[in-house]
């Protein structure tokens, strides 16, 4: 049976998602038996034009957001050539942190791009920018999503196992059944592809797998993370720290909250949530009981940069107002 052809590409972002694939470490040999990596610029030195020479790609892992004209062109080319397109990481899936630049009034494109031509005839052009940073999923349809910033190694491995069918090991199946949606786990067990649109994360919110102790959902004040330290293992939200675990898809196992760091939503919203920012405002405000307008004003004054916080990783795709404005091809 021929090996599956896999492509890996990163647009605008960092190298962490690619590193997550390299980080499957001890599984590398097994991966070698399952796939031929036919296109991977960062590690293999594949050139962008090499895609033109490929008849087909079975699975393409596309990481990074769409910021440049090249990012878009490669997304379209790889989509055309690939049977299955996987949005790898928060940038490809939701826009990620590069999309925070969309919040900037003055900086739609990097300032470094301006300058005087020294020899405009001879010198090449630096490349064009898109007007706004977008996710891969806003430019071409993605069949699967592996969320996270970066995706955790077990999830990357689970996605590879699920998409390049091979009966998984007991430990990976155990992971799949404990963390992934039932449909994905069953697909992995039986060696068939998970349904199109599958997100390799949990169904519930991060709170479901967070190790912190929840006592009562009431808190009296909102604190900034640097203002508070309680080594009790108590729920961060209940300590007064804005933690987005209640609106965020689980799958990470409460990685950040276990370290005493509030969740910022890199797995995107859960299925049950329409807009993570609205969910957070609703959830937090319901835990206060202010009685006067002054008390309400004093409380609201404590919340700062709601957009940059609640849509840290998903501003273009999961902020309802923004989403309606910018969806292009998701049909």
């Amino acid at each position, binding site marked *: 049976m021929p090996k599956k052809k896999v492509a890996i590409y990163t*647009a*605008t*972002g960092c*190298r*962490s998602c690619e590193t997550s694939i*390299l*980080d499957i*470490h001890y599984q*590398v040999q097994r*991966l*070698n038996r399952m796939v*031929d*990596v036919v296109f*991977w*610029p*960062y*590690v*293999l*030195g594949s*050139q*962008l034009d090499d895609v033109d020479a490929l008849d087909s790609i079975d699975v393409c892992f596309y990481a990074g957001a769409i*910021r*440049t004209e*090249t*990012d878009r062109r490669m997304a379209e080319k790889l989509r055309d050539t690939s049977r299955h397109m996987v949005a790898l990481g928060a940038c490809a899936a939701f826009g990620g*942190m*590069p999309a*925070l*630049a969309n919040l*900037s009034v*003055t*900086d739609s494109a*990097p*300032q*470094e*791009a301006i*300058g005087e*031509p*020294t020899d405009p005839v*001879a*010198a*090449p*052009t*630096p*490349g064009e920018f898109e007007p706004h940073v977008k996710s891969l999923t806003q430019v071409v349809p993605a069949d699967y999503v592996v969320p996270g910033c*970066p995706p955790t190694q077990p999830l990357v491995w689970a996605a590879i196992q699920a998409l390049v069918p091979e009966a998984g090991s007991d430990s990976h199946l155990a992971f799949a059944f404990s963390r992934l949606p039932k449909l994905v786990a069953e697909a992995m067990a039986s060696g068939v592809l998970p349904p199109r649109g599958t997100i390799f994360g949990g169904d519930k919110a991060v709170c479901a797998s967070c190790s912190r102790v929840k006592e009562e959902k009431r808190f009296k004040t909102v604190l*900034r*993370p*640097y*203002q508070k330290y309680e080594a009790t293992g108590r729920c961060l939200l209940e300590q007064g720290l804005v933690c987005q675990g209640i609106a965020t898809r689980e799958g990470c196992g409460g*990685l*950040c909250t*276990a*370290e*005493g*760091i509030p969740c*910022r939503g890199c797995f995107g919203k859960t299925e049950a949530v329409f807009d993570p920012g609205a969910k957070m405002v609703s959830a937090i405000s319901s835990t206060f009981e202010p009685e006067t307008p002054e008390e309400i004003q004093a409380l609201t004054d404590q919340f*700062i*940069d709601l957009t*940059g916080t609640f849509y840290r990783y998903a501003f273009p795709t999961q902020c309802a107002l923004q989403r309606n404005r910018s969806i292009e091809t998701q049909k």
Partner: protein
Amino acid sequence: MQTITFEPLRWQDPPSRVTIKNQNGHSDAYLQVTTPRNVRAMTIGRPVEELPRILAILGPAHHLAGAMALDSLFDVEAPEPAVNMRRALLDTYVFIEHLKKIAFLLSSKTNPFADLRVAGRTDRIPHGLLDDVMHTIALAQEAAKILGGRSDHPITAIAGGISRYLKKEAYARLPEIAGKCLAAATHISATLNEIVMETGDALPTVKATSITAMPFLTMANGEDPPNTAVFKADTGKSIAEFPAKDIPANIGFHKEFWSHAPFAYIKDRGWPGLQADTTEGLYFVGPLARLNSRQALNTPLAEEERLRMVSALGLPPHVGVTAAYWALVVEMLQAVEGMSEMFDQKKFVGPSIRTIPTETGTEGYAAVEAPDGIIFHRYQVDPLGIVEEVDVLDTTKQNNALLCLLTQTVVATCREQKKSWKDTRAALELSLLPF
């Protein structure tokens, strides 16, 4: 005019391409960063305490620089266990990053992902060496995860310290990891010495390649914590020494129409242009700069390796690409020796792990010797701690001139030697990798 484009270049972060304009036997080569990260637009308007986490996308060392800049902004001192944990984390990242480049070097003629077991068949590289390298990286990443919460985008460094103590089992696991990494690093460096460094046999493509001699910028030698930056001339003579907070005042940025990334230069000397014969105003950073700057190292294995390098290549400063690779090996050993020293329960326990700030300043800064070279963060905030202005000096801007000149040199040499475009690209990628 013939135009040749190599896009992207293998192993480069951020993604880059080289465009060569070929006319009448003369080639002009341009190195271009293709996907710049718009740090300013991402960070202005954010609560300042979020910056260590946001800027971690530039590299793990930026997370640490962000936390240290917050210490400065809030005027707090991190307790000793937190300082030690940050230092241990930095050593771990230096080890990982250098080892990753060594893995790329060793697999440069092969597909490392598919051919991990058979790479030795086509080179003099021993069977299994790449396996050892990859597994050692995996071990070090486990340590990074223990210390930083996540292995790639760490999260635990915060204003005033570290977010939490380590779990009990980590105290036993960390020394175990350090021991294994030390043994592996010793073996890897010995093998590299035999097959790569001293003979240069495994590096024929870049053996004769040198960077253009130019000044370099490092933190002062031996200062702990390092708080003074030093410009040294290409001869090794000190040009200027100043407090780290004055780094922005000493560096200018030049913009070229064809490049998204600006070119950092020594402000006092002015922008000299991108010409190999007038480089007094340019500078570079990184492992080779650090090695050129230092007299002796304070860890035995690294110092032994440095002396071996001096014995083979002569006294520093060095300009050869081989020396740049050797600097990675020396620093890899130094980092793993640092890990061995720091991964000790006694270093990480104490009455406090973080200092809670009581007031917000208006400006905070920090400089860190990151794996790829010195980096600098400065934040200016309003009374609510919202970021109003941000300066992030990364190694991409600082080494832009060096890498552009090196690109021109390599392309010119390859044209003279009538190498194919494919071989020219391979020579370029291998030459740029250690910087």
